[in-house]
């Protein structure tokens, strides 16, 4: 069964229709790449999954449970949306690390706050033990990201690539079922994109379920199990990367890909 099912999502901003009936599904352990020109609705789609935008129409299911249904207000209660968000992680294009906290605290903060709520009625000792576990896990994650020597640094002391790797660790710390990336390398200098892409590739090898919005075509082709090409708020074409990139069926896909291969 698919871990994520998106059914007929529509989203308007005022008069502008940004998403016009998006449907797709994603299997556990797969990486989905979404490609398309700027303004095609890719980012809005990710933001809908993370409840930063509310779709006007459509249904989102995770593991078969309806997480969001535009027709059903009981799926849109503010309190529950907070919990539902935790099914997803989101890595932003421009990182959005918390500047006043160290790298380590950036990774542990949200887990600590959640744990504090859950252990409200238990003693301080329980809380302290839980915090210790959280910190240990954060260190492991940062180690995986190659940032163990930076745990006590502040975000402004890091390069963009390092900041983005912290942001990835921060998202992973909450164990999301599905990790979303919104153009994770678009704000980086070309020489720094490699280190971030390497980390994402590592996650794919460990069968992390991911949705990756990207402009890095070679990377998408390499890492993704499935590729969606979006244009003007609809899915024009989707398939396995080797099919879609080598043998696109739609004229619009062909045009988009040729523009990219000629500009790169």
């Amino acid at each position: 069964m698919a871990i994520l099912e998106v059914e007929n999502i529509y989203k308007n901003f005022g008069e502008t229709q940004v998403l016009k009936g998006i449907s797709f599904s994603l299997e556990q352990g797969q990486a989905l790449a979404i490609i398309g020109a700027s303004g095609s609705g890719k980012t809005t789609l990710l933001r809908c999954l993370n409840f930063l935008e509310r779709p006007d129409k459509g249904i989102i299911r995770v593991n078969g449970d309806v997480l969001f249904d535009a027709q059903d207000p009981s799926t849109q209660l503010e309190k529950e949306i907070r919990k539902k968000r935790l099914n997803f992680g989101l890595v932003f294009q421009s990182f959005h690390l918390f500047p006043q906290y160290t790298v380590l605290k950036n990774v542990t903060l949200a887990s600590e706050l959640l744990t504090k709520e859950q252990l409200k009625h238990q003693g301080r000792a329980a809380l302290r033990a839980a915090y210790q576990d959280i910190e240990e896990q954060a260190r492991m994650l940062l180690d995986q990201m190659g940032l163990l020597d930076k745990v006590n640094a502040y975000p402004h002391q890091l390069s963009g690539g390092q900041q983005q790797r912290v942001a990835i660790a921060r998202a992973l710390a909450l164990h999301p079922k599905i990790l979303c990336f919104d153009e994770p390398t678009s704000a980086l200098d070309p020489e720094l994109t490699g280190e971030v892409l390497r980390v994402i590739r590592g996650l794919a090898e460990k069968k992390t379920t991911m949705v990756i919005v990207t402009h890095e075509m070679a990377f998408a082709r390499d890492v993704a199990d499935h590729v969606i090409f979006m244009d003007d708020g609809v899915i024009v074409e989707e398939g396995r990367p080797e099919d879609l990139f080598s043998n696109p069926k739609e004229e619009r896909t062909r045009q988009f890909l040729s523009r990219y291969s000629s500009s790169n």
Partner: protein
Amino acid sequence: MSNFSTIMARLLEAFRLNGQLFILTLVFALPLGLIIAFGSMSRWKPLSLLTRTVVWIIRGTPLMLQIIVIFFAPGLLGWGSPWGAGASGRFSAATVAFVINYACYFSEIYRGGIQGVPKGQTEAGQVLGMTKSQIFFKVTLLQVVKRILPAMSNEIITLVKDTSLARIISNKEIIMMAHEYTAKGLIWPLFFTGVFFLVFVGALTLLFNALEKKLDYFRC
């Protein structure tokens, strides 16, 4: 010489009123300003319109006028004066006027600071499952404090000197005290009030510099 020390002692005594007014204004206006800031940023239009109008009126009219109105208006309008007779009533009236006036100025500083924090910070907190209040207190607040510190220190230094306006309803603050000595042909007490203000403002400046330095460890 004994004349000098007596007068200085009386000036110092009078300056206590300035100091008390300063502290009370901060204690009440700093939190009240934050509430007003949230009111003016409210998505519920009637509330934001109302708060913005109040802020406009308070910032648009002289503090001196506000002190006079707050002290005299209730009695003259026949509601009975809430201030009572005597020095403590006059001081209370001045304090209320200062708190309202400064809360409105602070609210605008807060608003600028809060709106200046990038939306991405809130969104990052949201996708990490934080509640609105967690986001405000754990993510946004310190960044707001850092952003508004220069404007706040400016405003607070102005407040030190504005406390003298309380004399308009006969609160015996330092300048009023020194002014009385001109009738006895003495001008130097008046000059000396300036020294009191300079020292007080100097100490505040050092404090704010230290605070700014303390928040220097991060950039936002």
